[in-house]
């Protein structure tokens, strides 16, 4: 055991260079910086432009609409300098992109029982980018809804006095229920979908970082030992070869965990900066927490344990496969080429919907050990424990096979004589 820690210490010292530490810190800073910049830019552009209102009617009704809009989120600018043409040409409104026109005679038309309309103008700029156009679209939608609600209320008050307009406008509001596995809870569909997506998307991305980083590290470590012939020296020593394999696996996973922790932290502050929502995307669904728990969608402790186990074996599989690829690599430079198939194998289950894939593809996807880790959270949520357990068993079998192959390669001639090249990588 003692010698294992000696080996582990050496591996970590070799892997954890000043350059790597610098990369971690730089990553954190860049995420933070970009997140902050994008966030403040979006906030600033939201504050800069609002809605310009042209009240050409100047009646009690248009006054009411103006007041209702003034209470909304968007900044309201009243323009009294003329019609829409002059407003669009007015230099002081050059930064504004959303215009609303209450036409003259609106109140009169409605009083007479004839339909009329409120007009919205959106100015597009050719060099528009980022979230600007999308934000002005949602601004207009909200303003249109508010104006329409206010005009309806005004009409209802006139024609059906004594009845509350709010009641008349939505006398039987919808209540949404979600049903999972026979359990029913009142929660909006959007919240359930958001929650499931956060579990099924953010989770694989987090695991992806660990897998790719540690795979790359271990391949480089093996290939460089091969290139420097330090491996030949170690192999001629009375050292147990399994210890050699295991110390490399352990060191790479430890550092990968550290790295992915840094990445996730950076990601969080990036997302927080961009969305302005606060660090945790799950805050948005937190309100729906009790309902989600009632549906059995919140993971229990044993559920988390199962998912964790599946992820652990996913990482171990990736590492042992990377180890074998590292043994076969011609030199450190060919590592990048060797990474590609591993990354493809990893990404495939993220982008292909397993429930709709045809049988051949399904078999292929289930043969990739990483798939089972992606499926684990969903399966645990949906109570398919046996599927998760079978997945873990399969992953464990793949891992055992890979370690055996790696150890076999280590003890035979292959390590010294095998040269694996990608066509074109020279």
């Amino acid at each position: 055991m003692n010698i294992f820690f000696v080996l582990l210490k050496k591996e970590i010292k070799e892997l954890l260079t000043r350059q790597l530490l610098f990369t971690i810190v730089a990553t954190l800073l860049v995420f933070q910086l970009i997140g902050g910049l994008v966030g403040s830019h979006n906030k600033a552009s939201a504050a800069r432009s609002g809605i310009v209102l042209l009240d050409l009617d100047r009646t009690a009704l248009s006054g009411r609409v103006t007041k209702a809009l003034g209470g909304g989120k968007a900044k309201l600018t009243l323009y009294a300098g003329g019609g829409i043409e002059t407003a669009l040409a007015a230099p002081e409104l050059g930064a504004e992109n959303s215009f609303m026109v209450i036409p003259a005679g609106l109140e009169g038309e409605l009083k007479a029982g004839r339909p009329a309309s409120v007009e919205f103008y959106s100015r597009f700029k050719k060099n528009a980018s980022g979230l600007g156009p999308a934000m002005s679209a949602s601004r207009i939608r909200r303003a249109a809804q508010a104006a329409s609600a206010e005009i309806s209320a005004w009409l209802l008050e006139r024609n059906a006095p004594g009845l509350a307009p709010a009641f008349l406008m939505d006398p039987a509001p919808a209540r949404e229920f979600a049903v999972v596995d026979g359990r029913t809870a009142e929660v909006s569909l959007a919240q359930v979908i958001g929650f499931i997506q956060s579990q099924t998307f953010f989770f694989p991305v987090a695991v992806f970082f660990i897998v790719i980083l540690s795979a790359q590290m271990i391949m480089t470590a093996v290939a460089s030992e091969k290139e420097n012939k330090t491996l030949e020296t170690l192999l001629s020593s009375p050292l147990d070869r399994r210890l050699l394999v295991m110390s490399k696996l352990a060191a790479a996973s430890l550092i990968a965990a550290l790295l992915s922790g840094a990445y996730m932290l950076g990601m969080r502050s990036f997302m927080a900066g961009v969305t302005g929502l606060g660090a945790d995307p799950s805050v948005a669904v937190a309100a729906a927490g009790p309902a989600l728990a009632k549906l059995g969608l919140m993971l229990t402790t044993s559920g988390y344990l199962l998912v964790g186990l599946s992820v652990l074996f996913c990482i171990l599989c990736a590492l042992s496969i990377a180890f074998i690829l590292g043994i076969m690599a011609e030199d450190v430079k060919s590592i990048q080429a060797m990474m590609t198939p591993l990354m493809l194998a990893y990404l495939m289950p993220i982008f292909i919907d397993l429930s709709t894939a045809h049988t051949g593809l399904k078999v292929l996807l289930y043969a990739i050990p990483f798939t089972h880790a992606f499926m684990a959270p969903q399966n645990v949520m949906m109570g398919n424990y046996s599927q998760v357990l079978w997945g873990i068993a399969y992953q464990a079998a793949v891992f055992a096979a890979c370690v055996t192959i790696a150890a076999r390669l280590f003890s035979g001639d292959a390590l010294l004589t095998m040269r694996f090249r990608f066509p074109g990588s020279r």
Partner: protein
Amino acid sequence: MIKALELTDLVKKYKNFEAVAGLSLTVAEGEIFALVGPNGVGKSTTLKMIATILTPTSGSVKVFGLDASRDAHAVRELISYLPEEAGAYKNLTGREYLEFMAMVFLKDKARALAAAGEGGLLSGLGPRLGDKIKTYSKGMARKLLLARAVMIKPRLAILDEPTTGLDIVNGYEIRKTIKALAAGGMTFVISSHNMGEIEYLSDRIAVINNGRLLACDTPAALKTRFATDDLEEVFIKLTQ
């Protein structure tokens, strides 16, 4: 008496190419034995088989009576191998490297530290032992690796071109060290392209060409046989 090394009809094929084609020779304990021959004739391949990291296609390697294939683990307890053009862990310091390798071979902390201390002296690197290996010159790294190979006091040291890349003074010192260690009973099998070095160091020489043994004798006997006092001439006559 048991031989330190005994090769019997040793053959190594890479796919269809026969790199070593039936090599037989013996080395006595305490001997410094040199493999010489042109480039690509199978010297390194032979040394790798002795070092247990390549398996012979046929024939056998015996180290102090132990078979290098069947009793590989026991053989590894007796040997120390220095590959040609080997490197070291770039992010370790010289001292860390020696301590790590001593631990790998000796597995006992106290013994390892003592061996690493001796290795530090043998390397002649002095205060530079505290620097990372990536800051070393080629010769400094080679001296470190040589010190590593002998500091653990193996019964058989296998050195593939040990002094390549060393300057005259350092080469001279290394040769003196090897001679002193051999006088103390350590056996050496080395390969080299430096005839002066071979003549000074080795008790016996094996001249190899195309994986076959051409001659195996003391430098003096070989020179007499070819009626010359220049070992290089012997080499050229034999390999032409």
